[in-house]
């Protein structure tokens, strides 16, 4: 089993199995014409993110796991993923860290982890009313009252509380 060397934004080197190419389209393309002992530079991925990505890859044994449920059905991420470890993994992170991780996984073309992060953010929106969301994310009201009323009356049923069945 050959190993490859990844170099983070800060210049730190990490050794990892070449099976990582199963999860990352970027690495997969590079390995097409890769020479032994060559360093792979990841200019957009910080060391912290790279560590997390490797932790995720090692846990899943370099195999693509089942994607999260789409559309999500519960505000709790654990109900939407098949592996409870995935839920614990993203629940450790705060919102900024998740968004950083999304950017890093996008650079690495690592769809499985990106989907997990996106589903986690979607869970933050689910079952929250507009006032709570505005408060939580510091969104100042941009619409005038009339426009807001019109937007609401377009789909009156969408504003009703959703049943949990």
């Amino acid at each position, binding site marked *: 089993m050959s190993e490859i060397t990844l170099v983070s934004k800060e210049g730190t080197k990490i050794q990892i199995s070449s099976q990582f190419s199963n999860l990352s389209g970027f690495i997969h393309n590079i390995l097409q014409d890769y020479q032994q002992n060559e360093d792979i530079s990841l200019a957009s991925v910080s060391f912290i993110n790279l560590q997390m990505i490797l932790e995720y890859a090692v846990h899943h044994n370099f195999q693509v796991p089942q*994607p999260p449920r*789409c559309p999500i059905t519960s505000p709790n991420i654990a109900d939407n993923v098949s592996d409870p470890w995935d839920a614990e993994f993203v629940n450790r992170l705060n919102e*900024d860290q998740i*968004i950083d991780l*999304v950017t890093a996984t996008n650079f690495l073309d690592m769809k499985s982890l990106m989907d997990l992060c*996106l589903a986690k953010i*979607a869970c933050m929106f689910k079952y929250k009313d507009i006032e709570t969301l*505005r408060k939580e994310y510091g969104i100042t009201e941009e*619409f005038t009252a009339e426009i807001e009323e019109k937007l609401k009356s377009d789909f009156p049923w969408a504003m009703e509380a959703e049943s949990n069945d």
Partner: protein
Amino acid sequence: MEKISNWVLLEIFSYLDINSLLESRVLNKRFSSTISNNSLWKAKFSSSRYKPSTYHSGAYFKFPKTSEIMNFSCINDPDKPPTFENMAYYFNILRNPQRIIKCAHSVSSEDYTQTIDKVLDYNTNEFWSSKPYDEDNTNEFAVFELTGICYVFTISFKTYRALYQGGPIYPPKRVKILIGNTPDEYFFSSDEFDVEINENYNTILVLPNIVKGKYVRIDFIEKVTREPGSEKYYTVLSFVEITGFPIEIEPNPNSLESIIKSENLKNIVSRHDEIQSPFLYSQINSVGLMNDFLLATSNLSCNEIKNYFVAVYEQKNEENDTKVYPTNLTADFYFDNKDYERAFEHYRRIYDFYGVFKCFIIMEKHTELKSFLSQTWYRVPNYAEILKIARKLGLEYEQKMKEVLKKE
């Protein structure tokens, strides 16, 4: 929130269901424009991330939950590309189903007085009957004209119970739906569905296929019941209804909502004299769209609504100084409330043998069950069907029935 770039926002939205999305539109301008963006809806259709719907082409013999229909990944209409406006249009028409039959067009056979237009009026006791046949493998059809070109959602029908003959019902064995723009040519054809032998509404769902047409043809395939005395086979229907939405009318999302909000459930029900057959009741009973809708808006559970109807019904009959007329509704009501003796009595009186056997199994009256099996004048559940009924009641009942039937 400002840190999230637009493409990430689009990706996040693809994980949200429609209700959450439409609600988030009100949040701010950026959300509103991202959600109204057609690329989001196009992506929702083509994305491999979206699981393909469990519903495929053809029609279905039951009504799914509204939330299932509203899962837009399963709506497919070749004429309308998946844009926000088109999706919004569908959501609004799906929320406002209407009765769309204009008149009966033609029928394979009918009696001089028992014509096909009798099935359009639910307030009368009249019915349509086919001609008598010696064989049960004869087919019938009925063609209905709609109010202009319409989107067709559901087709429901109810078989007639001839109380004056001792209560037999005359359903077809199977049923099939055809939809077209002329009465002679049809471009949509459903699968064939088995018809339940009871008085419930049999509902065939055309959704999530978006099918437009002016004529609906219902094929009634083969027959089940012989008339006592003449020993001839008939197909007899008491009511047919087709729900959908006319293509020319602009949907008004607030119409039904406002009705429900302005009047409570009790008022809506009391407006209809005939509790057994009004359009609304039939919708509550068998059309899931309305059912879900009422449940969502009235804050009552399904059982509470059912109990309410039974209570209203019983009250009404006591006033008239008659006994409670047995229906599937009353029988199911007693069964749900574990009054099995009464449930059995009601099932027996309406000749619902599935219900009768259900009661036998749960009351463990195995000798009576066997005696019913030997009769030949009416179709009763066979061995496999009995096991199926028992399985629905619980695994221990299935085990017991297997032992009982093995001894035969």
